[in-house]
Each structure stands twice: as C-alpha cells, then as structure tokens.
C-alpha cells in the first residue's frame, strides 16, 4: 500500500511549522516511523504533511538546572547512546533501546513517538512515570503540559491541532528501569513497566494496560508505606483496564504486569 496523496511542506523552523499547521487538515511528520505505516494503511489521510524532520536544532539532550531537557526531534538511537541520560536518567535510554529495531531507532524521534500516543508506545509510559513536562509551541506562544495531562486517549494528546511539541523535560533519577515483554522481537509491548526512584520515592508506570500510559498508583502507595516489592506488585491491576487482543488476553496482561512490576522493583 502507498499513502493517499497529500501536499508536502518542509518547515524551516518551529514557527514556520506552526504557521504551516494552520492549513486545513495538516499533520506533522518527524521521523515518520509511526506515521508512515498509518498513512500506508490509510488510517490517516491528511491533506498536508509538514515535515519537521530537518529541524536539527531540536536534536539535543542537555542538563538544565535540576532537570534534563530533551529536544523533541532527538532520535531513539541518540537517546540510547547519550551520556547525560546514561548518567542521570538511564530509564530513558533503557526504554528507547527496546523501541522497534535499529532501523526504526535511527529515524524515530522521542517527540514523534509521544505525540503519536500509541497506548503500546514505550516512551509515553516513561515520561508519565517521571512526571515529565512537555513543552509545546503554538500560534499563541509556548506552554508546558505535565505528562499527567498530556495523554488524553488512544492516539490522542493535549496538543492542539496547530501546536508542535518542542522539548521534553525530565528530572534526574537515582535509579530506573524499563521492562518490556513482546511476542516477537521488535514488536510493540504486550506489557511494559517503567520504574524509577525520584527524590527517594519510587514511581511506576504501565504500557498497554489501558487506553493511555498509566501510573500504578496502588503500587507506589504500598511502597511508600514500606511494602515489599512482591506485596506492592500485587496492587498492579488497580485502576487498569488491560485490553485483550491478538497478542494477549486481558487476564494474561494483568498477570504479566504484576510479574514485570515485581521484577522492575527488585532491580531498583
């Protein structure tokens, strides 16, 4: 399958991209690793694609006070080998290394991935777990969206149609891990679990356990109360609504999530 016809515009800057997004039914193209398959299946038929893939000034990772700032167009392969993240926020490279395959990681970007908001996407869960902040620019200027408000539904985010994600800010973490089980190598997560210790507190997030990335609040509460990893992990299912599909039944996902949460906590 090839995509339905569309107009192609290449943005020379973020402001230019925002301007181009004013057009009727325009969509941003970053690395294209999520969008192009969707276009090919014709699940999406935007009138215009605004290519932001050349905005290399949005490819960076830098320390910014007590936070780490990541440019939205930083590619997965760059996250995997970034020395600042390796030292201060290893859960991100850990998760990024499990996205797709090397070919996908060479082109896919963190901004594109989280803006796509696939409930089986790995980085969204990590950002939610870390209480990241997502910076977006639109016609009215810049605003910061907490990760807890960013993911509004499957493939839906708080971004307005004329807004572009430009930066992601995460805290330094003391320890972190991302565990993922997929049926096949390079596949989406049947279930994924992010766990990180931030300011002495353990935060846990879940992939593919509902329509958006989720926080395992029950697990976090138990841990804060001094529970063991196994006892805390027993509360993984609270507030989740795991889907049943060709990869796994809902019951299997619920069981698997508990196992992965316990293992992740034991690794911290």
């Amino acid at each position, binding site marked *: 399958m*090839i995509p*339905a016809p569309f107009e*192609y515009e*290449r943005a020379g800057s973020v402001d230019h991209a925002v301007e181009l997004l004013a057009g009727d039914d325009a969509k941003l193209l970053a690395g*294209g690793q999520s969008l*192009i*398959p969707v276009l090919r299946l014709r699940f999406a038929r935007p009138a215009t694609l605004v290519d932001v893939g050349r905005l290399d000034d949005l490819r960076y990772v830098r320390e910014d006070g007590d936070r780490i700032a990541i440019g939205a167009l930083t590619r997965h392969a760059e996250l995997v080998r970034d020395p600042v993240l390796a030292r201060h926020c290893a859960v991100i490279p850990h998760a990024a290394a499990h996205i797709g395959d*090397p*070919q996908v990681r060479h082109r896919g970007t963190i901004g594109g991935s989280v803006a796509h908001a696939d409930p089986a996407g790995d980085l969204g869960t990590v950002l939610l777990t870390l209480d990241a902040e997502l910076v977006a620019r639109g016609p009215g200027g810049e605003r910061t969206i907490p990760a807890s408000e960013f993911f509004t539904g499957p493939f839906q985010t708080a971004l307005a149609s004329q807004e572009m994600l430009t930066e992601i800010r995460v805290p330094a973490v003391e320890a972190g891990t991302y565990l993922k089980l997929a049926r096949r190598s390079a596949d989406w997560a049947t279930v994924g679990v992010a766990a990180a210790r931030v300011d002495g507190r353990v935060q846990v997030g879940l992939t593919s356990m509902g329509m958006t990335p989720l926080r395992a609040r029950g697990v976090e509460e138990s841990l804060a109360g001094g529970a063991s990893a196994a006892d805390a992990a027993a509360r993984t299912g609270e507030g989740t609504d795991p889907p049943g599909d060709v990869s796994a039944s809902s019951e299997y996902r619920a069981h698997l999530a508990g196992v992965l949460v316990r293992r992740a906590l034991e690794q911290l």
Partner: protein
Amino acid sequence: MTRISLTVNGESHEAEVEPRTLLVYFLREQLGLKGTNVGCDTSSCGACTVLVDGESVKSCNQLAVQADGCEVTTIEGLAGGGGLHPVQQAFHEKHALQCGYCTPGFVMASVSLLTENPNPSEEEIRQALEGNLCRCTGYHNIVEAVQAAARAGA
C-alpha cells in the same frame, strides 16, 4: 510533484517525485536499482534496508522527499572496484543465504551495525539484526558471516 536532489551510491540525482512516493519505490522504479527488495511492505521484515547518511533505514517506511539532500547507499553501491564488500564476501563464504531475498537487507543492516560497533559480540549481532527476517532459517550462518566480516575489518 516535489523536486529532490540526493546522492545514491555516490552519484548525484535530481528527480521529480510525488510526495507520497516511498523511498524504496523511488530507488527501484525511478532509478532502476532493483537490488533493494520489498518484502512485507509493513516495515517489519527489513528486506528494503538501505543506508541513509550511513545509517540503516527501512526504505519502505521513508518518503523519497525525506531523503532529499541525503546520501543513500543501496546494495548496488557496496562493492568497489576491488570486488565484493567485506560483508558481501563474508555472506558468500559463510553461506549466509538460501533463497537470497532477505540478503540485501541483511547485508545493509550488517554494514550499519559494523560502522557503529566494529567488534560486536554474537549477542549484539543478533540484537542488531532484529529488524530483519529470514524465512529460510538462515540466522546461524548470517551471524557467523557478520562475525567473519568484523574480523576482516569491514
């Protein structure tokens, strides 16, 4: 139509493409470089792997317009005047293929791996080739070929 200019296998090309043209079809149909195969057509199998600016990319999952200004290398561009590229030579010597359909993609993915990691362990090779499928069950010899190519300094 959109005008693009790019370098493919060291040669400059200017072309008019429909924006929806996938890179693999641009290479095969507009440039006649049919060594890059279309396998699954869903960016799963890796048969269409080429190098864009030296890094492996699935060309069925890229638009030709995204490669504007880039340097693309396909399987046809690997062998130099002195014969086969060391990775191709190793695939030949280790019999790392049966039907051969997946081979161009595996070779390009292996070249990309060895650029990033000239001395990969067996485990690293297997991980790095996770985006390429061989349905003749040839992985064992493919891994051996990549090890041999690494030893040969590919």
